[in-house]
């Protein structure tokens, strides 16, 4: 047995990570191909891949994927544009925090998916409604997490900046923002992951495109292979965006790793 907190080697790490995927698919294949689970309820991996191929080549699933990505990214960017500056202001200026914090803390527990029916009444079933679901789901989370990060800036760095002649605005611009930039980027990465759940729910209702729309249509046809393929595509896109974010963060903030 390894000792607690003892690091694992690079090769062993990769091997272990991959082997769970293999084990998972093997168990799935065993249950379905072995006939232990009815095909009606759960497609086997091979059917899933065939269905997926068909979706992509015959039913224009690539367009649905593109629509979903655009909705997530669009709504998320809108949320970030509002939330990051507000979060920085709240973290830096305590009266601003006292004004917004109670409401934001309350609002972040409002389930974004529960707003879908209301938003359809307000904004119809067009793209605006989809973007709004993502926006509502992300904006309050980002505001709070950024405010907390900025509020926890090392006081001695702020004091050092003052003794070097920085003005209060200078402290915000030249200390609070750069000191917390990596944490803000990390917050965005995290919340982007959550935004994916909201978009699928938004696409379940009143949508004519997107991965969520495909999944709900497939349910009517009992096409479990397609549903699983859709879910896996979401997971893969999430994984890729996560990698991109991490890579970008490392490029943007070399001082953290130096």
């Amino acid at each position, binding site marked *: 047995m390894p000792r607690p907190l003892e690091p694992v080697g690079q090769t062993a790490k990769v091997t272990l990570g991959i082997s769970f995927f293999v084990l998972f698919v093997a168990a799935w294949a065993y249950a379905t191909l072995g006939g232990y689970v009815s095909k009606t309820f759960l497609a086997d991996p091979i059917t899933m891949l065939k269905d997926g191929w068909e979706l992509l080549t015959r039913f224009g699933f690539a367009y649905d994927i593109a629509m979903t990505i655009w909705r997530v990214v669009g709504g998320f960017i809108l949320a970030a544009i509002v939330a990051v500056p507000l979060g920085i202001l709240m973290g830096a200026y305590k009266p601003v925090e006292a004004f917004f914090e109670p409401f934001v803390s309350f609002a972040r527990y409002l389930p974004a998916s529960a707003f879908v029916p209301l938003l359809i009444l307000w904004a119809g079933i067009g793209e605006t409604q989809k973007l709004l679901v993502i926006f509502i789901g992300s904006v309050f989370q980002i505001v709070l997490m950024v405010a907390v990060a900025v509020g926890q800036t090392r006081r001695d760095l702020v004091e050092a900046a003052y003794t*070097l002649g920085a003005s209060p605005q200078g402290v915000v611009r030249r200390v609070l923002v750069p*000191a917390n930039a990596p944490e803000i980027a990390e917050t965005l990465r995290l919340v982007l992951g959550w935004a994916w759940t909201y978009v699928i729910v938004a696409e379940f209702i009143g949508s004519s495109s997107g991965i969520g729309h495909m999944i709900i249509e497939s349910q009517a046809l009992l096409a479990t292979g397609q549903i699983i393929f859709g879910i896996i595509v979401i997971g893969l896109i999430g994984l890729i965006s996560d990698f991109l974010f991490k890579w970008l963060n490392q490029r943007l903030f*070399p*001082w953290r790793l130096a």
Partner: protein
Amino acid sequence: MAAGLGEKLVIDGVSRVFSGVRGGAPTRAVEPVRLAVAENDFITILGPSGCGKSTLLRIVAGLDRPSAGRVLLDGRPVTRPGPDRGMVFQSYTLFPWLTVTDNIAFGLREKGVPAAQRREIIAAYVEKVGLRGFENHYPKQLSGGMQQRTAIARALANDPEILLLDEPFGALDNQTRGLMQELLLGIWERERKTVLFVTHDIEEAIFLASRVVVMTARPGRIKAEVPVDLPHPRDYRMKTSPQFSELKARLTEEIRAEAVLAAAAH
């Protein structure tokens, strides 16, 4: 006490009381302190830990407010931190996202010094603190001694009226500490900046200063002021001279009584 001739800094009856935590009794950190620092002087404030010497320095820096009394720099009262009082902290306070060069440039940029002049000043201070070749390193890539040298350069590059140092070498190992003292003293001997240096290390206090101010255990007040008449330039060999040993013996006696009191109080 009015600011007399040549008095750069006057600490005029400054005291500091911290209000009690959860209804407890308030803590008297600093009792009324009077201290005048002449232009170009190097003063060390020596005291046991927790005696309020850092609080006093923070008040001079404008990072803390006195409960009573005032601090005058060139006759003007200090109300908030400013670039006229450069500070070096005990904790490593370089901005981790800036390179050595950009850390030193921080105050210059704030002042709006043009880029060409900025480069010149930075190069001069990088040279003075012996960091050539490390200009583009981030603080994480530097040793503790190098980080404090950068912090000294950062404070001096701003050309403050007075340099405040709060146990800047406290976290360094003994050998590095000795070298840093010589480096700082060398800079002072050339530039004669007014310096207020807080420490609990007796040798350090004597070696650097022209006057050692001894503080009592909490609540801190000034117990003694001991002039140090060792000639300049000083080097490390002086630490073993008879005159140095005599001063050390005397200050050891002064500070020992306070350390005993402080230990009893904690």
